[in-house]
């Protein structure tokens, strides 16, 4: 017979039942140095890995059962950010789909600010506007949630977070102002929004952990 395939040899080494050629393969291996060596390796690997004891896992069940009974609920803002991020990503995907082939234009903020809006594909602009609006809406929800939690925070911590958020918002505003209709720069603004949302999410998680 011809050499058995790797999978056939593995089946023999792993003791998998049901291969009708098993006897034939064993007979071949007995007279074939290469296959004999390969089978020996396969059995060695199996033995080395398989001889390790399986660990007891019954102590893990109560934790699973508790979580099945009382599932961790995602807070409403966590759902909103997930939805907004999804929508933003989808809008960005649409954007890539409608962009003409070739590299994105090099960002030249000062020139692009004067560039007429009509020079860019309207579908591209619409996708950019939509993605940005989605991110802004998500940010509003999270900012509202932060405002709700803020009074319970340590004042010094709240002050530092206020500063961080104000700085992030200012940077976003500046970037947006110079981006105009430059696709490349506006994509970076979207990245900025995504980063801002992530910061807000982390901040809210920390706030909730600090005030359960």
């Amino acid at each position: 017979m011809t050499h058995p395939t790797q999978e056939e040899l593995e089946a023999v080494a792993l003791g998998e039942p049901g291969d009708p050629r098993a006897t034939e393969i064993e007979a071949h291996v007995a007279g074939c140095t290469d296959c004999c060596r390969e089978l020996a390796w396969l059995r060695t690997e199996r033995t080395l890995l398989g001889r390790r004891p399986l660990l007891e896992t019954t102590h893990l069940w109560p934790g699973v059962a508790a979580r099945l009974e009382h599932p961790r609920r995602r807070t409403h803002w966590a759902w909103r950010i997930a939805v907004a991020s999804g929508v933003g990503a989808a809008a960005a995907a649409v954007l890539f789909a409608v962009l003409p082939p070739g590299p994105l234009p090099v960002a030249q903020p000062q020139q692009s600010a004067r560039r007429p809006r009509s020079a860019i594909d309207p579908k591209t602009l619409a996708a950019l506007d939509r993605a940005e609006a989605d991110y802004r809406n998500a940010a509003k929800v999270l900012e509202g949630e932060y405002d709700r939690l803020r009074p319970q925070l340590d004042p010094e911590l709240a002050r530092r977070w206020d500063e961080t958020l104000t700085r992030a918002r200012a940077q976003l505003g500046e970037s947006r102002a110079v981006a105009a209709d430059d696709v490349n720069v506006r994509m970076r603004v979207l990245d900025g929004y995504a980063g801002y949302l992530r910061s807000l999410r982390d901040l809210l998680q920390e706030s909730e952990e600090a005030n359960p």
Partner: protein
Amino acid sequence: MRAASLPGEVLGARDRDSDEELLSRARAGDPEAFRVIFDREAPGVRRFLGDLLRDDAGADEGTQETFVRAHRRLGTLEQADKLQGWLFGIARMVFLEQIRRKRREGPMPEPAEDFSRTDCGPSPEAVLLSSESDRMLDGALADLDDERRSALLMRIDHGLGYGEIAAAMGWSLQKVKNEIHRARLQLRARLAGYLEEGA
């Protein structure tokens, strides 16, 4: 930690008909049925995650997370005989998430030397050989790329078929074969020297 049973007793003797019945009961909301699935499959999932994460606490947590997610998604599992591969697919996602989280949080600690593995055996040489080869194996596995290691372990240690691995990893069948082949070559290169010395 205690050993559950010999691998072959759990991994080899799987009752597929029973899987079908259990699954259907678990899908219908029978908590006892899901508990049986957990008892049967958790040791394999735990070992898989332990081999990937090399962190006992993380592997325990990952095992629990895998089964919580599995319970939530029971309705998406169409074939009962794919249960093990399906669980490993979920475990792999849990592993990747843990790795990403750890990378965000900072450098991963070096795995501690596990001296508890030295078992009572018939002779000191045998004990030494066993613990040395286990350490060598650990090191050789750790050198493999995460994804490649996952595929190799699913095949050799847990006996999943290539098709099941492809479904669990989200790869083509050819990619599974290539990755497992490459993993084997790497593993053998590491083990060859040790095994020749021991011979």
